[in-house]
């Protein structure tokens, strides 16, 4: 029998589980924090809460396990997130549900309530953000709604801890909502037919039957574990026959019927005064996505971020950690200990040599990358919680279109400016495989991470504006060119751009601090080991004498093709392993006056287009598999050299003065 078919071993002590379910951005995570005293990422960008958080709660005097699920709009899953949530609901038959709903958006909330009713889950409905609803002239007859659905309904303002006190007690009174939309006679017939084929003791058969009718492919595994091949074929036959009788997809028809049922409920309990949305907020909100007005805002946001990350993080932060903490304290201390413990030079160099795990790997990760990435994550958290990111996605949608991407891809792309490795991981939030491959490729190709930008800023200081613009132009041009080409070559549909835009909100600093800490924790756990591994690679190459040999091999290309001094080949070679190591090497040469301005631009373009670092490469292997990773690297390195060489040739040929 398959593994999935084993009944989850019944734990001796059964702690009741409660799931928080709701649309995206309705404040589930805040309520989760209140219930468990823990924090998880609260964010406005659809898809950021892919990981499911669990915590213990003693609210109301009983021990419970609280599960925070990704936001959903429908239990017929259309994304990874929705699937995760649906599976949580399906797996645990005794699961209770706290449904969190944005009070002003009750319509979409009730759409989920109906589906929970069909799943026969005990539900407590929490109408959150009651203040925002009130501001917009919305009144909800909470008691009327509770009576209609026959479940407890609470009204809360979670961010201000208002109205949550009753939650523990009310959880005991949760029960299955008493609403069942009736679909068409044909559909009802199909539902009954499928219900009869499902395992007898199965709960929520109606919900399952409807999911199956809607052609939910993500249920295949579940089905194969519980039913025979014959029965599955029968079910498929029923759903196929019904679909052939309908012009519209059944999923759409079912959604439509559900919304009609919701509208009937709303008629009795939901009232909205004709009052325009807060004019000031609305104007600002519109301005952020305005085709012209939005541009200065976009530029201002990027500039502020650059100042904060570049000047504060990369300047003051790195200086302090590198020169004071590591330079004066940690490295001398570790060197002393290592030399005391290990009398062998080989081991000493392994830890504290020029490619030592501590003196290079750890110093690099903690002293240079951490402050930059930390300040970046903080800024990114601000963008997320204020609701600006989805607006940014709207602004760049057109440009991204050209590259075969939708505006949604802006999330990993912006995150890539912080750390390409982490950004590669977040490509998971994208909907199509094609988009995930494209973004991974473009991240590796042209998005410089903050550590690299930090080094490059130093080099730009000595250059004219013209040179900087040229660099940016060539890098962006390369990305658009490669994106355009790759989107033609990689099979698959282009991704739809359908995105919800949450209202602009003033972020809570405490939330952002905690979120930044959580991301830094991730960074330390996931990225630092890879930094160490990369350093070990370098160490091994150096020890085996391969580093020198490779350098000699590379020299003809570097000197002849790129027009750089022979010494630069070392920097470029390091750039194969970490492009900011490479940049740092070039930085030293530029400082010493060994590069003219054309050489600086050519070398910077080449190194920017390299794969960011070994860690990034490992992450690509992890996410996309070795084959794709090798293919990408096999394309990127020659491409970077060709662009660099071409630029060198062109600039010299035209006699451009930079």
């Amino acid at each position: 029998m398959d593994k999935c078919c084993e009944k989850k071993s019944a734990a001796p002590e059964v702690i009741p589980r409660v799931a928080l379910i709701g649309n995206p951005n309705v404040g589930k995570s805040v309520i989760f924090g209140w219930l468990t005293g823990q924090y998880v990422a609260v964010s406005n960008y659809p898809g950021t809460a892919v990981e499911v958080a669990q915590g213990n709660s003693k609210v109301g005097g009983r021990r419970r396990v609280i599960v925070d699920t990704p936001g959903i709009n429908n239990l017929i899953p259309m994304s990874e997130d929705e699937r995760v949530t649906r599976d949580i609901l399906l797996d645990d038959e005794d699961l209770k549900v706290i449904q969190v709903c944005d009070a002003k958006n009750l319509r979409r909330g009730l759409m989920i309530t109906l589906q929970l009713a069909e799943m026969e889950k005990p539900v407590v409905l929490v109408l959150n953000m009651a203040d925002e609803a009130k501001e917009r002239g919305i009144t909800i007859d909470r008691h009327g709604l509770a009576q209609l659905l026959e479940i407890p309904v609470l009204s809360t303002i979670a961010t201000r801890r208002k109205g949550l006190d009753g939650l523990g007690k009310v959880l005991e009174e949760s029960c299955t909502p008493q609403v069942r939309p009736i679909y068409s006679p044909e559909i009802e017939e199909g539902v009954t037919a499928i219900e009869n084929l499902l395992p007898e003791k199965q709960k929520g058969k109606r919900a399952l039957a409807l999911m199956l009718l809607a052609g939910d492919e993500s249920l295949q595994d579940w089905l194969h574990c519980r039913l025979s091949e014959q029965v599955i074929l029968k079910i498929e036959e029923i759903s196929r026959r019904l679909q052939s009788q309908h012009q519209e997809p059944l999923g759409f028809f079912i959604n439509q019927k559900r919304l009609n049922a919701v509208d009937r409920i709303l008629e009795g309990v939901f009232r909205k005064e004709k009052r325009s949305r807060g004019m000031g907020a609305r104007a600002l909100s519109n301005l952020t996505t305005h085709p012209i007005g939005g541009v200065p805002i976009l530029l201002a946001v990027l500039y502020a971020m650059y100042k904060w990350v570049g000047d504060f993080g990369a300047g003051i932060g790195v200086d302090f950690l590198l020169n004071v903490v590591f330079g004066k304290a940690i490295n001398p201390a570790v060197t002393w200990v290592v030399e005391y413990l290990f009398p062998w030079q080989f081991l000493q160099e392994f830890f504290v040599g020029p490619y030592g795990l501590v003196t290079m790997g750890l110093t690099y990760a903690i002293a240079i990358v951490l402050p930059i990435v930390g300040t970046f994550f903080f800024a990114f958290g601000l963008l997320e919680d204020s609701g600006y990111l989805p607006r940014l996605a709207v602004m760049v949608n057109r440009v991204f279109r050209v590259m075969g991407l939708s505006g949604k891809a802006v999330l990993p792309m912006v995150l890539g400016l912080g750390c390409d490795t982490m950004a590669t991981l977040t490509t998971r939030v994208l909907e199509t495989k094609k988009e995930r491959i494209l973004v991974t490729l473009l991240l590796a190709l042209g998005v410089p991470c903050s550590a690299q930008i930090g080094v490059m800023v130093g080099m730009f200081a000595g250059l004219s504006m013209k040179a900087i613009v040229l660099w940016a132009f060539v890098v962006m041009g390369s990305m658009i060119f490669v994106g355009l080409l790759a989107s033609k070559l990689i099979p698959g549909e282009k991704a739809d751009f359908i995105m919800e835009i949450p209202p602009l909100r003033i972020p809570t600093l405490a939330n952002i601090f905690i979120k930044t800490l959580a991301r830094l924790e991730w960074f330390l756990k996931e990225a630092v080991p890879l930094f160490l591994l990369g350093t070990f690679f370098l160490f091994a190459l150096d020890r085996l004498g391969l580093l020198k040999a490779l350098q000699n091999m590379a020299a003809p290309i570097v000197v002849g093709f790129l027009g750089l001094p022979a010494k630069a080949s070392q920097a470029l070679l390091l750039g194969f392993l970490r492009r900011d190591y490479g940049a740092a090497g070039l930085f030293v040469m530029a400082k010493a006056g060994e590069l003219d301005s054309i050489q600086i631009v050519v070398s910077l373009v080449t190194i920017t287009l390299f794969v960011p670092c070994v860690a990034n490469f490992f992450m690509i292997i992890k996410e996309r598999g070795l084959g794709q990773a090798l293919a990408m690297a096999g394309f990127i390195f020659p491409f970077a050299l060709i662009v660099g060489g071409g630029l060198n040739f062109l600039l010299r040929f035209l006699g451009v003065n930079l």
Partner: protein
Amino acid sequence: MNRANEGPVPGRKRHGRGWNEAGEKSESHQREEILELLWTMREKGPVSVEEFLQMTEEEEADHILRKMERDEWISLKEGQVAFLEEGERRAEEIIRRHRLAERLLSEVFELEEKYMEPSACQFEHILNPQVLDSVCTFLGHPPTCPHGKPIPRGPCCARFKREMEPLVRPLADLKLGEEGRIVFITPRSRIRLERLSSLGLIPGSVVRLAQKRPAFVLEIGETTLALDEDIGREVYVKKNK
């Protein structure tokens, strides 16, 4: 929505063209009714003669079927009714008339279901081809009737002429800040349609167009959605006054 309402309902009196003074239907009218029923039955699967005769309410249906076979409108081989070229063309036309009439009645006169059906059945015998194309254009060349069944395309649909201001038009035609009620959506993919409907974008929803560039921004109640332009073009609305 009651799909049983589609097509003739037993015992319903019919009026309109095609009735002679004695209150009997002309044969051509009867033929039209038969073709219409055949078409709707065929949408659900193959039609057997026996099944058909049970469903129809035309007297002498059996007789007329045979006449239509002789005229090479239909074939009746192996107990199955199938359209031949001529029958197919005529049936398609009558269905187009019926379903466009339904659209017209529900969108323009906002008639309720129970009043809509009998009137549509009268309209279908009255509309001539020129008027029909104008109605189709006026309604924005709807792909489906209010029951979600396909409306056969006519010559006007390919040309997409805009000689008159259509009542139902693509969302993209609204001016910024205008509101409209969604009448139908014609998406390229199933997933897209389902995703839109989970976000509350279904026929009947009222949307306000906040922005067209750089992407479409719609407000549906308190939800704000951004969409690609080409998705926005697949949503058809009737402007709110």
